[in-house]
């Protein structure tokens, strides 16, 4: 296996790096004279807002893109990466946010897939040597200090185990440069600390790890060195000991104001605790690979933000889809202001006053090929204000689109521009502009700040608070515990499709919530709120 991989050579000063790399896409300067060095046995964090140029730099390091000028450095020598295959041969491996594992195969099969150890039976006939594969797997497991049940089907393995397999697969092929793209986004806090331990162990064995993250406290906990990017440039690069979180934030944001979500939460006075959204005994069966929901009950009061927490894939998205009327439930009840909605269609939910912000902005929240105007006005095509006889009143539609976008301060060029021309934050604000336009009482909001930069996050948090102060309420599912803690009055925790606990804002810490997130759904009484 893996014949030409270079073993870690501690004598070089730069295992992987970049010298003066620039890359333009049309008029957009994605990278502008970026230089950085990763030494052997170093964990190097790369941080910055969306669009700061991190992804472009990583694509260049993997040979997916060629720089316009400047070069990639490997083992102190400049190299030209022609394609990703060459990068892999030179020891550079990437762990993507979405794992590249075949769900139908076992973990062991995934580990060796594409590079199976073979055993010759007779002449040219060879078969896969599973015994040897397992031995190799055990050795890797030991090297990384983790425990894995290799014969488990991948689809049933927990997310963090799948992530280990991704990493071990790269190690097995001799990759000693690992690039991890936001590896903690899918993990619970306890799992994050395990991953950190694993990565530190690999570092001590000489691996060079590049770690892309938005979460500065993880950077501090894990990285040795940090490079901060802003607007295509590497604006700071220093040992983590020399840069505290405040200093990093300043570099990331430039002159922009600090993150307002850190401000003390304004005291939102709960109006008389009128429960408007009631969910009782909601069950939903599994379709495709979704998590079944089991007997979920919850209430939401006016003026309240209720958080839904859980390790990814434990039923949060399914619950949110049920609340938005996009997934059918097998039993139970959802009622808004006393009117039963179970068994109705999604448009009935909308008509009753429920808006929905999808976690999948690219495929469900927006129609990427449609214009900005069409995206912000979709769903309102039958409103009498936008009709003239049987026809759409296009001037009125255009005026309303501008008004909606202005209300939420969405920055755009022209209404007819494709919605994909907007930045992530502005795209998400556009989704909110559409969903809040009809003044729904309840907003079902899933992962609103995924892929949104710090300024956009602040704006979206403000929108959510404003919605509640204006007499609405929000159900918010987020993988960012900090976000839930900053915004929510109560946080409900799901595990394996069951409601396993609830925490009030005053008691909410990442630890209390994380503990509930990892609880098994079976046999747990719901904590009293």
């Amino acid at each position, binding site marked *: 296996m893996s014949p030409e991989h270079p073993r870690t050579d501690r004598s070089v000063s730069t295992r992987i790096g970049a010298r003066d790399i620039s890359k333009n896409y049309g008029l957009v300067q994605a990278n502008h004279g970026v230089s950085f060095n990763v030494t052997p046995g170093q964990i190097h964090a790369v941080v910055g807002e969306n669009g700061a140029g991190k992804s472009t730099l990583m694509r260049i390091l993997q040979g997916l893109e060629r720089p316009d000028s400047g070069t990639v450095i490997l083992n102190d020598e400049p190299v030209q990466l022609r394609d990703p295959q060459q990068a892999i041969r030179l020891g550079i491996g990437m762990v993507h946010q979405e794992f590249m594992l075949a769900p139908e195969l076992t973990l062991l099969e995934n580990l060796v897939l594409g590079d199976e150890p073979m055993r010759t039976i007779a002449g040219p006939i060879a078969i896969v040597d599973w015994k040897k594969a397992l031995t190799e797997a055990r050795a890797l497991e030991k090297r990384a200090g983790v425990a894995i049940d290799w014969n488990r089907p991948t689809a049933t393995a927990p997310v963090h185990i799948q992530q280990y397999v991704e990493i071990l697969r790269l190690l097995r092929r001799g990759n000693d440069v690992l690039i991890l793209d936001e590896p903690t986004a899918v993990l619970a806090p306890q799992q994050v600390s395990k991953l950190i331990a694993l990565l530190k162990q690999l570092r001590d064995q000489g691996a060079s790890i590049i770690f892309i993250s938005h979460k500065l406290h993880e950077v501090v906990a894990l990285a040795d060195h940090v490079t901060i990017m802003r607007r295509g440039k590497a604006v700071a690069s220093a040992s983590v000991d020399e840069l505290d979180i405040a200093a990093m934030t300043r570099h990331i944001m430039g002159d922009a104001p600090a993150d307002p979500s850190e401000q003390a939460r304004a005291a939102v006075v709960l109006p008389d605790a009128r429960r408007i959204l009631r969910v009782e005994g909601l069950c939903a069966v599994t379709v495709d690979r979704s998590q079944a929901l089991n007997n979920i009950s919850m209430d939401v009061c006016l003026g309240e933000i209720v958080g839904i927490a859980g390790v990814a894939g434990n039923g949060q998205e399914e619950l949110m889809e049920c609340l938005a009327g996009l997934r059918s439930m097998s039993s139970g009840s959802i009622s808004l202001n006393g009117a039963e909605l179970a068994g109705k269609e999604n448009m009935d939910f909308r008509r009753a006053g429920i808006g929905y912000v999808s976690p999948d902005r690219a495929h469900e929240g927006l*129609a990427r090929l449609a214009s900005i105007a069409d995206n912000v006005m979709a769903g309102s095509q039958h409103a009498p204000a936008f009709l003239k006889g049987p026809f759409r009143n296009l001037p009125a*539609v255009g005026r309303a689109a501008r008004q909606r976008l202005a209300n939420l301060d969405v920055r755009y060029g022209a209404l007819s521009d494709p919605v994909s021309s907007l930045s992530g934050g502005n795209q998400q604000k556009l989704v909110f502009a559409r969903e809040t336009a009809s003044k729904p009482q309840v907003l079902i909001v899933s992962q609103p700040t995924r892929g949104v930069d710090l300024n956009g996050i602040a704006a979206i948090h403000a929108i959510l608070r404003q919605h509640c102060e204006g007499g609405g309420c929000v159900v918010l599912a987020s993988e960012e515990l900090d976000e839930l803690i900053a915004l929510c009055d109560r946080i409900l925790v799901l595990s394996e499709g069951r409601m396993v606990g609830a925490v009030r804002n005053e008691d909410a810490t990442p630890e209390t919530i994380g503990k509930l997130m990892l609880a098994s759904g079976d046999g747990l009484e719901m904590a009293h709120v």
Partner: protein
Amino acid sequence: MSDHVNTDAMPADGLAAMVRRGLDGTLRFVVPIGIAFAVGAVLLLAIGENPLETYSLMLSEAFSSQRRFAATLSAATPLLFTAVATAICFRTGVFNVGVDGAFILGGLAAATFGVMLPMSIGWWIIPLSIGAAMLVAAFWLWIPGVLLARLDVDEVVSTLMLNFVALGIAGFLVNGVLLSETSGNNTTETIHSTAELSRLVPPSTLHSGFLLGLACVFAYALWSSVTPAGFEARLVGLNKRFARAVGISIPSTIIVVMVISGLVAGLGGASHALGQVHKFSDGFSAGYGFTGMAVALLARNSALGIVFGAILFGALASAGTTIQLFSDIPLDIVNVIEGTVMIFAVVELGKLTLWRKGKRP
């Protein structure tokens, strides 16, 4: 069908953007045609003909006199209907290839009514025949619509197969109960003269069905750009999950566009039966449904593009026939050009450019 940005005519959004979109559309129309004629030229050279001479002969055969131009428009008439019927579905993301079958059944229904209804009802015979054709064809495409919307049956397979069923049904009937007693086989009686659509510029066969076709294109333009239903259909075509999440019913949108497509295809069949051939016989549709698909693809579902595309293919068909009569060039050259246009009409030009530069997209 295409990855360029689809926009409704939004007011006051800059002349430059409109000009850019217009140029873009023109390019996407002209380039596939250019490539197709180049491929045709290679074939013509291979059989020892001069392509330039052939093409200029075709051009003059198609457009050079009033009579020839009328013949071109006459050949374009069925394509106006089938292209609109196809475009309605394509822009909704429903790959309906069953327009040909609906066109045939519509024609059969119209011809049958044109023969069977009593002459005594006078001009009423025309709207009744047309209405019957539209109902039959709409029902015909409602079937795959419901199968797709409710049972997730792939519409390409169902509509393609239903074409053969339609052909079989029509063939069976014109050799059985509807067979003419006077004129040989595989054909119905000729319709009553009161059921015939009027000729516009006799002696040419150009008939008032052409005006109906233009009206259809115009109605399609209105439907797609300024009605809520057309807007919803486009969102469904662009992104089904998005459309559903904003409260649009995907199943009913699919069924509605299939039924509208059937109505238009049936109207086309009626126009062809009552205006052009005055009866129904085997071989009623010379692949009009599929040529209409080529037109819709080339036009990228735009109404204006459909008019130009239908006239282009009408010209090819009418000039091709005359050329075959007076020279050694086979009519098949027209089919080659048509097929090549279809292939290159669906190629994304943006990708072509990238490919030429040897870059990854």
